[in-house]
């Protein structure tokens, strides 16, 4: 019999702590596939921020350094400058990257730091119990926007990929989703391109993953997938926003 689907080599065999329907696990898998594809497990270092993704080391068989909340791009900068030959990526949520760590990601991107930033946008603060994030959609109810995100009080949901794509230092920027097999396929391609960008040494690469958080959205897994299709993608358009010559 032919084996058509297997656990990537760099993925540890363990039970997941993620909630049912959460997409963090899918992102992990795509990263492992790319690590295996390029054969870089032995010179890769992951830098998770603080959030549900902090347990990266429980799932991926690589060196990992925890960073303070929001500071992963600065930590990755220090690492990459010491060892430019290593493959360095950060793994950050939307609170981590879009709120407390906004300055670090913008300046790291603007320096054209040759690292890859993996950004998981689930439109809430997952780990702390579902509070409003900078990416929370208008009208979306969270534990700190009980009547829904209010434009006058909370401002607009932040589009990080579009903002970063505008910076000269950014070589590759894409937003992908994981709610259908077709989207996962596109996401896989984008991850490969982002990895390739860093391996070529051309500069900063960035991928935003639209991701479900059924637990904090108070929805089932299927309802969450529907929500991504109907409410999230119309505001957070998927696609490649930047692909400079020489990158990707």
């Amino acid at each position, binding site marked *: 019999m032919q084996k058509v689907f297997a656990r990537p080599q760099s993925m540890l065999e363990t039970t997941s702590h993620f909630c049912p329907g959460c997409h963090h696990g899918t992102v992990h898998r795509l990263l492992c596939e790319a690590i295996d594809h390029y054969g870089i*497990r*032995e*010179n*890769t*270092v992951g*830098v998770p921020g603080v959030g549900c993704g*902090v347990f990266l*080391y429980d799932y991926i*068989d*690589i*060196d*990992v*350094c*925890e*960073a*303070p909340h929001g*500071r992963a791009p*600065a*930590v*990755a*900068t*220090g*690492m*990459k*400058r*010491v*060892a430019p030959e*290593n493959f360095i990526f950060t793994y950050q949520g939307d609170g981590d990257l879009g709120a407390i760590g906004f*300055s*670090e990601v913008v*300046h790291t991107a603007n*320096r054209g730091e040759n690292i890859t930033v993996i950004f998981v946008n689930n439109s809430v603060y997952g780990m702390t119990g579902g509070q409003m994030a900078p990416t929370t959609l208008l009208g979306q109810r969270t534990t700190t926007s009980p009547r829904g995100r209010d434009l006058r009080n909370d401002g607009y949901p932040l589009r990080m990929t579009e903002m970063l794509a505008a910076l000269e230092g950014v070589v590759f920027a894409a937003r992908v989703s994981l709610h259908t097999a077709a989207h996962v396929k596109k996401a896989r391609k984008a991850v490969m391109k982002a990895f390739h960008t860093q391996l070529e040494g051309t500069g900063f690469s960035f991928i935003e993953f639209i991701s479900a958080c059924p637990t904090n959205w108070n929805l089932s897994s299927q309802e969450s997938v529907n929500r991504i299709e109907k409410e999230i993608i119309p505001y957070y358009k998927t696609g490649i926003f930047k692909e400079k010559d020489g990158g990707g």
Partner: protein
Amino acid sequence: MLQGCVALAEGAIAAGCRYYFGYPITPQNDIPEYLSGRLPQVGGVFIQAESEIASINMLLGASAAGARAMTSSSGPGISLMQEGLSYMAGSELPGLVVNITRIGPGLGGIASSQGDYWQATRGGGHGDYRLIVLAPNSVQEMYDLTIKAFYLSDKYRNPAMILADAILGQMKEPVRLKKPPVEIPHKPWALTGASGRKAQIIKSLYLGDGEMEEHNWHLYEKYEQLQRRDTLVEIDVDDNADILLISFGSCSRMVQSAVGMARSRGLKVGFVRPITLFPFPHDTIRELSREVGRVLTVEMNTGQMWDDVRLSLHPGCRASLLARPGGGIPSPAQILSKMEKLLKAGDKVAEGIC
């Protein structure tokens, strides 16, 4: 002749530090300005970060990758670094932070002050940890103690701090550049990629039952070892001294002058200078305060080191404080007149600020 900040920077290079991350703030700009030119000459990297928060986290990353690296700043910037310092101590990462202090709180002033003593010696950020804190009092020591700070920081896998001020940063003195052979210890814990070994993790998060308590006792044991083995103190005490002066950093230079003047007047005096502020020379001060019976602490704050002095004193020893918390420098004449007043008053002067 070298300027203090330049001597410190050369000390870092002599120690094998090749990475500097920092954000401008007076009165320490001479360090980044010098290193931005110097580091590339020796194959190093200089990054002007977007904030002190970014600086300390770049330092964290460079250290996790196994390199000797540093940052420098002053009061407000050091405050912003406290979260990163706490993570570094919790993750057992070495690294050097230089604080060329200003007067606080708030934006304060840029003149010399020793008001960051508590922040430096108590850990400063959240949690149960300490920094290794060294306080030079000469340009030679700006060089020597920087080398020492890297050594101790690697030895204990804990961030170290040089606590100095604008006087030490700006003044010029002759320096012997000893250039010891750089011995950067092997760092098997560094994250270099899981090649030929198991994957490694650098972290400070421990959620398992009892893990955090065990971790904190482990850190505590390192601080105890530091106290036992690596406390540095300068001692200059006359036989049968009647008063013991205690001071650190730039301020101790004034005290040394005052001690010289006192001796030329025939007084019997002693002088103790903590060189490491953490670990603090508690044992030395306890012993000397027993012998001498009266101490005068002189510092440029409202009495922060005095806390540690009083924790060390032999019971019954009389303790007084001469404090200048606003940028003013206690002059040798002022110190001498305090000394004489205390000695004349004998047992009649109560403890306290004089």
